[in-house]
């Protein structure tokens, strides 16, 4: 599936999860997104899954103690300054679960985007806003290079017997890192202009058209939003 339709499908599912009113519907969407995420390699997805379920769990655990909803008190605890008497009612648990699942579903949608989509192809697929697309592509390309520069700065100093420690020490490297990146910027701007950037009448390499699968994904995404809003 090409990147743009896949991104639209994920966005549709996330929106549906945020529009649905029933726990079972949100849980179903979260399950679908989880299955999608499981296609990513184990080591890469662990961080994302822990993040998604962790933040959802936090909502579920905190909500009962920070709200006064419902009558079926399941547990009432001590009175604490600021938070008043801590009690847990069935309604609060239900809302905590519902909101927690919604956060997890949205987090899983972003996780699927990060794990499975080629960020770079998605950015370049955008036909409009050429300057912003170029800025994002350029910044993405430069990060590994500047990370090597940052590591190189520390190494060059260690090579002269100068140890860099603590936040203060490292902060002194920020200036040279930026100075180096600005020099790269001038060279890059010069190279781009030497290759015709800024010339009127630029064309774009043809983007592969959307296959039947892509079109289906987009319609499914839109349908998910509609269904989420109306029935779920």
């Amino acid at each position: 599936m090409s990147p743009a339709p896949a991104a639209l499908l994920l966005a549709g599912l996330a929106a549906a999860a945020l529009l649905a009113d029933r726990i079972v519907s949100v849980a179903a969407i979260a399950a679908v997104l989880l299955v999608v995420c499981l296609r990513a390699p184990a080591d890469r997805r662990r961080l994302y899954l822990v993040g998604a379920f962790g933040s959802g769990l936090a909502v579920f655990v905190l909500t009962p103690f920070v709200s006064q909803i419902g009558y079926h008190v399941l547990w009432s605890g001590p009175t604490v300054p600021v938070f008043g008497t801590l009690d847990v009612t069935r309604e609060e648990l239900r809302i905590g679960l519902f909101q927690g699942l919604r956060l997890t579903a949205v987090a899983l949608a972003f996780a699927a985007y990060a794990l499975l989509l080629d960020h770079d192809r998605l950015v370049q697929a955008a036909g409009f806003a050429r300057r912003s697309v170029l800025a994002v592509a350029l910044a993405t390309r430069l990060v590994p290079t500047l990370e090597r520069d940052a590591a190189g700065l520390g190494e060059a100093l260690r090579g002269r017997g100068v140890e860099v420690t603590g936040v203060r020490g490292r902060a002194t490297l920020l200036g040279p890192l930026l100075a180096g990146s600005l020099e790269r910027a001038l060279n890059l701007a010069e190279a781009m202009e030497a290759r015709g950037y800024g010339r009127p009448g630029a064309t774009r390499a043809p983007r592969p058209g959307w296959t039947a699968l892509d079109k289906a994904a987009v319609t499914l995404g839109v349908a998910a939003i509609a269904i989420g809003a109306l029935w779920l």
Partner: protein
Amino acid sequence: MALALVANLSFAYPGGHEALRGVSLELEPGEVVALLGPSGGGKSTLLRALAGLVPHFHGGRFAGRVEVGGLDTRRVRPADLAGTVATLFQDPEDQVVFTRVAAEVQFGLENLGTPPARIVARAEEALASVGALHLAERPVAELSGGELQRVCLASTLALRPRLLLLDEPTSQLDPDGAAAAIELARESGAAVVVSEQRPERVLEAADRVLFLAGGMLLDDAPDAWLPREAVTPDAEPRGEPTCRLEAVSFAYGSVPVVKARSLAVGRGEVVALVGPNGSGKTTIAKLAAGLLEPQAGRVVRAGRACYLSQDPGRYLVRERADEEVALAVGGDLARARAALAQVGLLGFDDRHPRDLSSGERERLALAAVLVAEPDLLVLDEPTRGVDPPRKDELAALLRSQAPGRATLVVTNDLVFACEVADRCISTAAREAVVA
């Protein structure tokens, strides 16, 4: 009819002195010209003038006239010249825009308004012509220096220029990679102007030689610039080993780079470490200097070790030259100024390192390492962008200081290796000691 014409060109960068003084020359179609000259002599400035980047991109005071393919650079912007003139700059890392090779090569074609249907085919044709078609879908971050240089050459050749300007295209490449790059440029059929600090890499391919010093074209090149054959030094190892690697292995993540390597550098010895790009020279140098810990085997070192990194110009951290050099000796400015004088930078004490030319910056970084008078001195490619006369001075300096310490020099420059070293070690073949 001449392809390019430069008539009495004089130019000074904003707030700077004259970089070019009254330069005149003509270029014929398909001609390969070698542009030699000392660092700061004006070579890059002349190439930028031919591409219109001087004065449009850099600004400054421009006098005289430059015409390429009938277009006067005073009236035509560099982007409009891109179809006629293409430029390959020194550091491939500073020219790549996109994260994937295919998009990178297509970028130039898109800017020139090539009909969309033809873009992909032209890009693949250019990649194939430099033998890099297999890299089309690869992310740029994973390519080696040599591969990246080839991709940049493909993105310039894709525009089918009539004049190809190469500004020190081989400074990062080993001898084979350098020969291949120059040969690919020749085969393109375009007129080629190659600025180069290592004459032996470009003189056979060149139809004509221009020598630029102090911003002026001279009639002939001083003899320091004539090519010299590389006679490989193979003296016997001698001296008390200051640094010894015993069956050392190292890997970056899962990629093994150094496998059970043994090596010794004795006190009073200058040892050259040579070998192809990506063969682990820098990694071995860092292991010897103690910047990296081996995963297997042992590194035994006696006394203090200093390491000059491979791209010194980029790793200067202070805003004054003498403060930069004084870092390694706890801020002792007197010793720092003595070290600056030693490398030919007398009077540069208050200069900002970022305002120096590339050659001057490399010498500043060298002073910043020599000042500490280490027992083990490890230099990683100390002659990049350094012209032959300065290289002779560097070789003489290292030889004169050799008795007091052990010196390990990593270099792709075989001529320099043979002049400065007692013996050569290669990372290419497993056991072969001779380069």
